[in-house]
């Protein structure tokens, strides 16, 4: 009986000497390590609005909606399980980033969200959304000279660089003369073939 007690008393003395183990939180901040997965935040500058994050989100916390000429990506932190898939699959790698910020406590769960809005490029033939201007420009830059094969990509990219006008009013398609226009895949077919 004595030996084990001596051993445990020694341990207790050691712990006593080591000082309190309790963090001073919330009196003092207790930052998470830099790699910690807290809440993901959109970065407007690097996000191209492709919607990959919404696609891979396991908790279906990211909602993508096209309204008029704007695409809106919305992340709801009350549904986010902080798995980091959105950051891992982000095509630019920087459009949505998981920050080590863990304090999301709130009185109203509708209030904890983050959103980004991106301009859409609409088809001049039918008015359907083709994609975000930044996304198409990003693709054009990836393809380099290959992008010239697609008038849509080229026009959007040039407009992005301040050269010319990409989107215009809706037009009535009448054959090959409309090839050099911003068109969706469906309108591209008659414009190229007829």
């Amino acid at each position, binding site marked *: 009986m004595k030996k084990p007690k001596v051993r445990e008393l020694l341990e207790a003395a050691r712990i006593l000497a080591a000082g309190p183990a*309790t*963090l001073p939180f919330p009196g003092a901040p207790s930052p998470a390590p830099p790699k910690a997965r807290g809440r993901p935040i959109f970065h407007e500058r690097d996000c191209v609005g492709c919607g990959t994050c919404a696609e891979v989100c396991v908790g279906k916390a990211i909602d993508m909606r096209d309204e008029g000429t704007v695409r809106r990506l919305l992340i709801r932190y009350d549904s986010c399980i902080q798995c980091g898939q959105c950051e891992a699959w982000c095509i630019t790698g920087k459009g949505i980033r998981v920050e080590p910020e863990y304090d999301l406590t709130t009185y109203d769960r509708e209030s904890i969200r983050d959103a980004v809005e991106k301009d859409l490029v609409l088809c001049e033939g039918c008015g359907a959304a083709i994609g975000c201007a930044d996304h198409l420009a990003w693709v054009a830059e990836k393809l380099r000279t290959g992008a010239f094969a697609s008038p849509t990509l080229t026009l959007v990219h040039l407009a992005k660089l301040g050269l010319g006008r990409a989107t215009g009013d809706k037009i009535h398609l009448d054959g090959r003369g409309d090839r050099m226009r911003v068109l969706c895949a469906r309108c591209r077919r008659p414009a190229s073939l007829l």
Partner: protein
Amino acid sequence: MNLALRALARSPWVFHLSTGSCNNCDIEVLDCLTPRFDVERFGILLAPSIRHADVLLVTGSVTRQSVIRLRRLYEQAPKPCLVIAVGTCACSQHFFRESYHSAEPVDRIVPVDVYVPGCPPKPEAIIVGAVKAIAKLRGGSVHVG
């Protein structure tokens, strides 16, 4: 603020209820009691019965089998009773929304005062949640009923 409320704010007793969680949030809640975080220094104690508790702490995604129990426990709680939803499951059910055995998120069943999202939330976040709950109580905007 009356005396009972003031006493409550100084030492809230918490009843912990898991409505179908993965255990992580529950362990982090227990972790708050251990030396590193030690919420007992704020007078927060785990209560053995809901009838002794001031705070109902709910974790988990609310399964079909537990939903009646959650409702009944809230009815049995002495009022005012604060409800804290800990973890993303309790806040919104995230992917368990699509499950055949899930009921509704906690806040559709009982009024929730503070949400602590996170999967699991760090014990620090749970402490912040408790602090916010007490602040709300002091502000007097708690569901009394």
